[in-house]
């Protein structure tokens, strides 16, 4: 496999403020790589270093095996970028904006550009300042996609898009990957990554806390189980089962969280006369919150 993005101990600090610390990434050609983390975790800082908009305090970043600050133009020639927040030229229409960015980059196929405009349902005749937030986002997306770049770096790409346009966007991403192009997608919405990514890196407070396949992250998954009993729930029997935690009782209802195999819980429930059984596999988002939210809460608990 070929690395399209590679970072080695990448660190960026803003004086006393934390930026990113020792970030190691390796994004392979042809994959959709999710870069996940809460607001302010360091996602945009990492992207800005990759694009040479800011320079690292230490460490290295390579895109297409070119060090990001050595020849940024050579890197930029092969990528498409959508910033998380951007403004463009108020007086230009959507079409003029796309024409301008097409001229700066070169290599835009007008037919493909037109198909993107149509699929995103964008009216390119309006001035940029007249667009709604979602339509501005569409202009940014078309500008990033229109030259079929080898690498797409997209920072919060679905912000402001309605669900139908989001579907179109993910369909276009799948097409890009089918053409062996690479996508680096930053988001704080885990369901987005769950839906489109092969692998994800999770960044928290400037540090990468996990890099794995989406499937593997789901292995972290627990089951959220609800058991209803005719009388008082036998809490103690369940609390001692391996992997069970967060046992809560509400009248005749017993709620618990099961990490790993659920069979012992099912067997105990059958033995103790359960009247109703509900088990739900959590989303990646819930998994993430359970895993990393718990870690985040830990210091607070200790203080208490």
């Amino acid at each position, binding site marked *: 496999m070929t690395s399209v993005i590679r970072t080695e101990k990448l660190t960026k600090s803003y004086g006393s403020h934390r930026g990113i610390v020792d970030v190691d990434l390796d994004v392979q050609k042809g994959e959709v790589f999710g870069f996940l983390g809460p607001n302010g975790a360091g996602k945009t800082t990492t992207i*800005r270093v990759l*694009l*040479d*908009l*800011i*320079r690292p305090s230490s460490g290295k970043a390579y895109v297409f095996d070119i060090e990001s600050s050595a020849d*940024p*133009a*050579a890197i*930029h*020639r092969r*990528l*498409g*970028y959508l*910033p998380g*927040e*951007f*403004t*463009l*030229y108020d*007086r*230009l229409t959507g079409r*003029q*904006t796309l*024409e*301008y*960015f097409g*001229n*700066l*980059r*070169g290599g835009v196929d007008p037919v493909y550009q037109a198909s993107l405009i149509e699929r995103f349902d964008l009216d390119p005749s309006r001035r940029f300042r007249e667009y709604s937030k979602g339509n501005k986002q569409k202009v*940014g997306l078309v*500008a990033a996609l229109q030259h079929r770049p080898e690498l797409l*770096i997209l920072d919060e790409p679905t912000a402001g898009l309605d669900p139908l346009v989001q579907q179109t966007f993910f369909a276009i991403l799948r097409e890009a990957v089918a053409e062996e192009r690479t996508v680096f997608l930053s988001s704080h919405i885990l369901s987005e990554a769950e839906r489109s990514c092969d692998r994800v890196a999770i960044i928290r407070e400037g540090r990468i806390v996990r890099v794995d396949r989406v499937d593997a992250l789901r292995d972290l998954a627990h089951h959220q189980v609800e058991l209803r009993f005719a009388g008082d729930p036998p809490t103690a029997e369940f609390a001692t089962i391996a992997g069970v935690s967060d046992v*809560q009782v509400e009248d005749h209802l017993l709620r618990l969280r099961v990490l790993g195999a659920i069979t012992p819980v099912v067997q105990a429930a059958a033995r103790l006369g359960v009247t109703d059984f509900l088990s739900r596999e959590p989303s990646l988002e819930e998994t993430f919150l359970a895993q990393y939210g718990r870690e985040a809460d830990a210091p607070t608990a200790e203080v208490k």
Partner: protein
Amino acid sequence: MAAGIGAPEIAAPVNTIPFRSRIYGFGSIYGKTVRDSRLSLIIAAGLLGGMSLVMAAGVSSIFPTPASRLEIDKLIGSIPSSMVNLFGKPIGLGTLGGYFTWKYGAIFAMGTALWSIMALSGTLAGEASRGSLDIVASAPFGKRRIAVEKVTAHLTMLGLAMAVLAVGCVAGSTLFGDASLGDRIAPLSAIGFALWVGFIAIFFGGLAFALAPLLGRSGSAGIASVLMVLLWVANGFDALAPIAILSPFHWLAGHIALVGMYDWPAVAFTGLVAVVLLGIGVEMFTRRDLGVTAGLSMPGLPTIVLGVRGSTSRAFGEQLPRAMSWGIGLGLMGALIAALVGTMASQIGNDPNLSSTFSAIFKGFNLTSAGGWLQLYVQLLLIAAGFAAATFVSKWASDENDGRLEMILATPLVRARWVIAGGIAAILAIVVMTVLFAAGIGLGAASGGVAVGDAITGSAVVGLYAAAIVGVGIAVGGVWRTSIAAEIAAMAVLVTYLIDLVAPALNLPDWVHQLAITAHLGQPMVGVWDPVGVGACLLIAAGGIAIGAWGVTRRDID
């Protein structure tokens, strides 16, 4: 025990907001607006107070004796009526207050009015266009209160600046004036002068404020500014007498407070009209949809002018509207001046006494020639050209400050090329502005029977100076931060102007005066060029762009 998550059942009590943050800080819209205006207050108050001290020192040093004061008094009735009316009645020119009012009063009033126009046109309309007003307006109080608090905050800052001006006048007369020559300015006179300046400013600011809900920020500011110049000029020309009755300069013609001439009813009337305009603005804002303006229907520019072919053409396309605005404004002013200077020169040339008096006031200018008069005015217009250059720098800087630069630099365009493209575009904008200015000067000179050759070629000095200011701004933006580039460029214009003004007036060492690049430009309107100044301007322009291009490769993009 499981913790409940969600909204609390009982809302937390609202904390008492300290009074201090209500009047300065984040405790109220008024406090926030006052806080946001602190820099503009410092600049305005510094300029008004500082200039009043400098002018007082200058006048006292140039005309220190009773004989020289008598010479100035001879100006009464001897100068062209257009000048008399434009600058106000020349009463008590032999005193510090009279001379100060006549020569600089209109500059103080219109400069302050420009501040008021920019502040009051932008305080609501500008925020509405950015969308930040939506959040403020969703707070639990009405739109009227928002508008009133915003206006009150500006009036507070204006009042403080006027207080500084009044103190500056009193202090200047006490420190530098000669009481035996009638120079002492009483506190009441200084207050009267500050009220004259302040009420004229609020009148035009109020006009902008009343128009802003309809026309948006730029439309209302533009119309108020044009009307300000028009009503000032109307006050000086018989041909425009019918509209002069609408001019606060006309209403307040009899109020020359610094010589003890008061017309309090006129002051009160002007204040009343200003308050009515502000009230109209508040009501318009309250009743209209937030942020929905009729706008001024400007003709759309063709794609070729908008420039989507490359970075230089795009940057020039962004600069073109303001280049046209500055060029047309300077061109109209140039045409007006050039049409008048022939008459002024011949009147002074026919009176040796008047000629010597003017020579004493305006050292180094041959005011018996039309070219000399043009040169005098061009010295003043250099300030406008410098500020125009600062706005071109601001437009270039907006790529980074507004958040476009990230997308631009994610293309194969390298940073240095972006700076060079922006610099070339700013220089091209200056060319457009200068050509329009030269055309205005040429047309005015032709209509006034003045030779147009030197006047047109001499107009290039405006462009050279502006190019140097662009160089300063782009160097600062490239090396340091674009967010302060335009401010530093504007500061360079002000400092240059003050050095050029103060150094000769205070008899400072010549090297101080030589620090101002405007002291090295010769007198191009009479055909005298100084190659050193021309070379310096070109070098600063090109060098500044080169330094900016180098600097931006070495720093992070904001």
